[in-house]
């Protein structure tokens, strides 16, 4: 997978590039609009990550030129302003997704993969993490073969974590996915639900699956060193 990052803030560009390379992407980086436009117009990328506030040629302008030149690579916009008009303007110019700074890298990765997947991946009906099994059709959960009763919110939370097993998901991502944006920022609702989920899933087992990564979020993983 070939990916172009156009971002004038070097530090942001570098950690995004580093993170993507760790996920086995081939990454090119441009630090200004002109260089970005030149790269994007010459090569066919699978994904372009585009900052809006760029010296030289602005992000929205690059987007317009790309679409005019029939370059159809999905574009994920990064921005530090998130007014609704601006979002609408960029979606109209051909953006595929939108991410407001400061973002968790995990979120960028999830969105990038969603854009690349395009056609829905064949999602198996059963999710497995270690000895934990989630049946997506019947919404039944078993640990070591034993059935666990979960409320619908607890199930949604566990399924979200398990479907990104091994990846740390931030509270913001969890709230936006399992609840909605209104809950963001103020409540400890995620922590309370995770505690309840742990009591049901992990308490009876010495081998823990739900891990807290301080400062980053939560992670469901069979590995022990995540904790």
């Amino acid at each position, binding site marked *: 997978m070939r990916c172009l990052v156009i971002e004038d*803030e070097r*530090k*942001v560009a570098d*950690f*995004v590039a*580093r*993170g993507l390379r760790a996920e086995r992407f081939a990454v090119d980086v441009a630090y200004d609009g002109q260089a970005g436009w030149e790269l994007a117009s010459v090569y066919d990328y699978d994904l372009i990550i585009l900052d809006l506030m760029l010296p030289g040629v602005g992000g929205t302008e690059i987007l317009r030129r790309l679409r005019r030149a029939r370059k159809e690579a999905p574009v994920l916009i*990064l921005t*530090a*302003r*998130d*007014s*609704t*008009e601006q979002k609408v303007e960029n979606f109209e110019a051909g953006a595929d997704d939108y991410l*407001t*700074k*400061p*973002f*968790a*890298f*995990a979120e960028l990765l999830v969105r990038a993969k969603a854009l690349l997947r395009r056609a829905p991946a064949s999602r198996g009906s059963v999710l497995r993490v270690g000895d934990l099994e989630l049946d997506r059709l019947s919404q039944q959960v078993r640990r070591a073969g034993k059935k666990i009763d979960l409320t619908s*919110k607890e199930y949604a939370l566990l399924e979200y974590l398990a479907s990104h097993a091994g990846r*740390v998901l*931030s*509270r913001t991502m969890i709230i936006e996915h399992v*609840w*909605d*944006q*209104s*809950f*963001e*920022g*103020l*409540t*400890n*609702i995620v922590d*309370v*639900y995770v*505690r*309840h989920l742990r009591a049901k899933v992990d308490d009876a087992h010495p081998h823990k699956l739900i891990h807290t*990564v*301080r*400062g*980053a979020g939560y992670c469901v993983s069979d590995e022990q*060193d*995540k904790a």
Partner: protein
Amino acid sequence: MNPRSLRFRLVAWYAGLLTAVFLLFGLAMFQVLRQYLERSMADSLRRRSEQIAASLLANVRQSGESYVADEIKARYAPENYDRFIRVSRAGGTVLYASGRTASFDPAGLPVPLLADATRQVSCADGARLLITAQSYAPPAGGHYLIECGGPMQPVETMLAQWRNSFLLGFPLVLLVAVAGGYFLVGRALGPVVEMARSAERITLQNLDERLPLTHTGDEIEQLSIALNHMIVRWREAFDQNRRFLADASHELRTPLAALRGEMESVVEQARALPEWRDRVGSALEEVDRLAKIVETLFAISRLDAGEAQQVWTKFDLARLASNTAEQMSLLAEDKGVSVSCLAAAEVQVEGDQARIKQVVVNLLDNAIKYTPGGGAISLQVQARGGKAVLEVADTGIGIPASALPHVFERFFRVDKARSREAGGAGLGLAIVKSICLAHGGKVEVESVESRGSRFRVELPLAASTNGG
């Protein structure tokens, strides 16, 4: 009528002054009139005396005193014409004295010692007379005092008539003047009342409105112009503040993104020492908090700039509230607090549903945070008085009276230690207020310390269900 209003006070002063001036003027007029009437009466009496002196007394030696007396009687007929005439000699003896007339009886009036004087006397029967006395010495020798008089009654009647018509006419004049004054003052102050009414309507959301101009060229027009300039300056200051907030939020986000990205890569590295990961994780938590504060500030500045109206839909506030309460029930359960939701009937409002939900979330979250275990929270939604009213009441620790006016201010905390422990940044209620204002509503709080708080949100009902 408000007795302290400018209109009432001006008219009252006006009426008082008018009364005082009128009474003084009337009194002076009355005196002048009396003097004029008395003087002209005295003049004609004196002329009569002179006539008597010149035509009769001058020849008294030749004609004899009895002739004079007969002539006076014949020529002037004082009894018939309601006159008093008396001629006395130097020694005080009377040569001639007129008798009783229809209106008075002069019998027994003393002869004055002083000559050439005008005096008023009362007769024995009570009638008042004005009498002039003049001494006369005929060329042939001798000395006489001629007195002529007449009743005061016609003068007094005239004065009384004048006074009565004045006293009757004055209240009428006063009434007309007060009514006219009241009307004129009302007209002059009308623009002020109008200005006060428009000023009342101007809030942060409609700073583009201006006060009405009167174009009268008077002080009130100047006042409205000055006030409008003040609103413009106020608006500029407010805009500057808003731009600063937006720019600051933007400038803060980019470095925060870099900071977060670098730290996350450390935390998620399996190779890193657990102690390092813990420390960087702790720093990352602070980055998160900072990012949330920046986001909320930015959201508030956008709401205050009136950007809320872009995604408005019509929805049922009662259902939104009960769904939200349901979603948050675990948080309450976890603390041992009961939440009851009273939202039966449909209450349609119009607005940004996600934002309104945030209001419910923040108020409920607050209530749960500050209500100890065993307490109760009640959420109520109803249409009341043409408004959609949402109330969140708790039996929690309450808010001290001194802090109540500030709870909706940005970064305000009732008790610094307490709310930081609970994870607040002092922005939750500030954004609630901004959201309510942006929707044309308001939020209020009442609270009794250690008894509980009650937050009340009022929003306009959606157009089609007005009054429902």
